């Protein structure tokens, strides 16, 4: 029992990170139908910049805030320099551009900060909390809290605010969005900033547990993408549930089978889900009359 609980704890922690990455995918996908494969690099930047800031003598909290803002600015730059000039290109080309941007960010980080693995202190110490024979790190609770808060914020944004609907409208029909008075360039800039900021938040929260280096982004982007597909691309609820499920699958496979199979098991289950539910668990089936 305590063993199962332990696996669940670690699964939920990892899952919350995947959920945050998937939520980042959701925003940009909702605004532009583009899957931004540089999303993992935003997570990496969040951790690396926080480390750099605190190593330079800044208080940890301040370093984290600066890291999130700087990463959001990086997202805006990426949109302005790489995505906007290619407007009108097919979505596939834009996705390949994001892969290029991710390689660029990774390379740049390696040049500036080197290849070492870094970490920094947790927010509220490293004393594990004991619950029914299992333990959980206080930092894990912060990660989970972060994912839940971001989810609630995004859900309210997309369903309750006019700006959130404008983001959805921009992705559905860019031309009509302009005609009703939506500044579609601003919507794109905003979604890249939000998405990068959320990615960075994930990096800030997880780095004390998993440590960070210039190359952690790629694996996170793939897992986050898988989580988003599992839940249904474009749906914040799907991103959250998909992320948590993926984390749990990995942790249970690692615990009961072998940690070598954890990635394989997760991806096999995703393939099975997508085979029977191509829209993902929460994806909307789109039917349209013409």
């Amino acid at each position, binding site marked *: 029992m305590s063993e199962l609980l332990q696996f669940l704890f670690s699964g939920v922690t990892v899952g919350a990170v995947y959920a945050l990455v998937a939520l980042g995918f959701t925003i940009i996908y909702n605004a532009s139908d583009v899957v931004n494969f540089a999303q993992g690099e935003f997570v990496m930047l969040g951790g690396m910049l926080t480390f750099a800031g605190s190593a330079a003598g800044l208080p940890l909290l301040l370093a984290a805030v600066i890291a999130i803002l700087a990463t959001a600015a990086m997202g805006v730059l990426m949109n302005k320099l790489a995505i906007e000039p290619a407007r009108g290109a097919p979505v596939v080309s834009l996705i390949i551009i994001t892969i290029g941007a991710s390689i660029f960010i990774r390379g740049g980080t390696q040049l500036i900060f080197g290849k070492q693995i870094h970490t920094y202190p947790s927010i509220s110490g490293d004393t594990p909390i004991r619950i029914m024979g299992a333990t959980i790190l206080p930092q894990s609770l912060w990660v989970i809290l972060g994912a839940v808060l971001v989810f609630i914020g995004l859900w309210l944004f997309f369903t309750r605010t006019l700006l959130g609907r404008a983001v959805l409208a921009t992705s559905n029909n860019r031309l009509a969005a302009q005609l009703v008075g*939506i500044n579609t360039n601003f919507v794109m800039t905003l979604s890249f900033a939000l998405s990068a900021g959320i990615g960075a938040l994930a990096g800030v929260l997880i780095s004390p547990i998993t440590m960070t280096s210039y190359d952690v982004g790629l694996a996170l982007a793939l897992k986050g993408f898988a989580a988003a597909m599992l839940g249904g691309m474009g749906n914040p609820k799907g991103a959250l549930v998909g992320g948590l499920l993926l984390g749990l699958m990995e942790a249970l496979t690692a615990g009961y089978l072998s940690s070598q199979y954890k990635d394989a098991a997760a991806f096999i289950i995703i393939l099975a889900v997508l085979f029977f539910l191509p829209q993902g668990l929460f994806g909307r089936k789109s039917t349209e009359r013409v």
Partner: protein
Amino acid sequence: MLKVEGLRSKYGRIEVLHGINLTVDSGEIVTVVGANGAGKTTLLKCLSGIQPVSAGAIHFRGEALTTVPAYKRIHRGLAQSPEGRQIFTNLTVEENLRLGAYQYRDDRVEKDMDEAFHMFPILREKRNLAAGGLSGGQQQMLAMARALMARPACLLLDEPSMGLAPIIVQQIFDVVSELKSLGVTVLLVEQNAFGALKIADRGYVMETGQITMEGPAAELIADPRIREAYLGV
């Protein structure tokens, strides 16, 4: 209200509008009729700002509009119901209407939506359904209602009758004439020349990117050349 002078526009290197001159006065219904491919839709796209203009000028309520980006033109009072309806298919009918009034955050939005439902009662019934599931006629109504939510001084209507059953076409044209009594100026682009000229005050005939005839709608409808070329009589 709307004045177009020497307007030219290209797709790549091919010019499709060869110097269009056109005026719409306040309170008028003006129609541009012409065959498929004459450049009518391109003209409206230039007016709403989603098609680049290569020469000429657009003036709206005394202001130059030519360099104003598309999303700002609706703030000046120029709204468009585009060709092919272009509604937000994944949003509900109500969300589509709300986005039509994107620039407003006041109490009047609610009132305007009620008026839109009054004008098109079927939209009230379907208000919570995804707009993509509406029939063609209902989508056209939604596109017009969405444009009206912007409280336009001038409404650009692109082919509202395209692909619709005759009874729906009549209903749409009735609404257009009704707009006149509400003080909305209308520029209506149509292939259905007879229907459009019947409700319009003035008309322009467009052929291969040029205006070839213009005059009061009643005169155009009686003109033998028009009758032969566009009315099929």
